[in-house]
């Protein structure tokens, strides 16, 4: 099964898919923005500032999800010495970092009218900042060790080490008393968000996920062509 992820086999898909994904992203984000900024109602406590949720929450979800995938792939790379996953893990990092930064900045902007401060060193926010640092270290490690034999091992270990932070982020609001509110959406229990707010949130999440896939595919193609360029030198 792992052989299906070999670059030679999936390049045909990764090179053609971006234009269709970009098209779908533009359509979904346009509808999502109208829903999030105009149609969805204001909150009875937070008023219009609740609209920041539509960019803050999907960004946080995608940055967490992306790092989790990188960590799982890194585990497979370390244990099974699977070379096909290296390129996938490397290509996921840039979009993950940008979504993490968006989550931190929009969270900070949301914090000012809600908590009266731009920043608080509480468990959720600090653990998200640590995740951003892991993304930066992971990307820097690729730059520093690229072309050397130990690059796979070093980057995989960083990702696995960073994965320890994922459950801390998720449960920080339950384990500690934080300024950050607990999760409002849970797939196992009834959500506390009204359906009129779920629709724009779902649309924006779908749009952000598509954008993340688009960036991943473009980065993957760039890395693959870079490798093939080196191959041409050896001919």
């Amino acid at each position, binding site marked *: 099964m792992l052989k299906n992820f070999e*670059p*030679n*086999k999936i*390049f*045909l898909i990764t*090179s053609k898919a971006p234009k269709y994904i970009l098209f779908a992203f533009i359509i979904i984000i346009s509808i999502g*923005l109208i829903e*999030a*900024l*105009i149609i969805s109602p*204001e909150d009875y406590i937070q*008023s*219009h*500032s609740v*609209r*920041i949720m539509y*960019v*803050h929450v999907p*960004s946080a979800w995608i940055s967490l999800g992306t790092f989790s995938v990188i960590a799982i792939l890194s585990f497979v790379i370390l244990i099974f010495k699977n070379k096909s996953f290296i390129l996938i893990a490397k290509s996921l990092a*840039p*979009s993950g970092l*940008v979504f993490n*930064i*968006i989550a931190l*900045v*929009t969270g900070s*902007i*949301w914090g*000012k*009218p809600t908590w009266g401060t731009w920043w608080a060193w509480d468990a959720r926010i600090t653990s998200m900042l640590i995740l951003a640092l892991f993304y930066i270290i992971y990307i820097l490690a690729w730059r520093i060790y690229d072309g050397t034999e130990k690059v796979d091992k070093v980057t995989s270990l960083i990702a696995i080490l960073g994965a320890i932070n994922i459950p801390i982020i998720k449960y920080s609001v339950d384990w500690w008393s934080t300024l950050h509110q607990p999760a409002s959406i849970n797939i196992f229990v009834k959500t506390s968000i009204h359906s009129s707010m779920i629709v724009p949130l779902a649309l924006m999440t779908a749009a952000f996920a598509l*954008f993340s896939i*688009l*960036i991943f595919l*473009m*980065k993957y*193609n*760039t890395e*693959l*062509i*870079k490798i*093939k*360029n080196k*191959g*041409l*030198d050896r*001919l």
Partner: protein
Amino acid sequence: MINDIISMNGYGIYVWSAFAFTLISFVALYTVIKIQLVKEKIKFDKKYLTLTSDKRQTVRAQKTYKGILASNLVSKI
């Protein structure tokens, strides 16, 4: 109506700046990755054009190279 959407009861500055930051980040990331991709494609084309005809044939026989060539400028020359 438009004024209400812009001001959002005084929260407009926070809401619009959060959305603007997100969209600017998207455009910046897309532009950087696109530039990197185009640069690598141009580098590939230049290297490919310097190859001898038999080496080009070897390259064309490989699946991934074929795919890159199909999406690159050199295929249109």
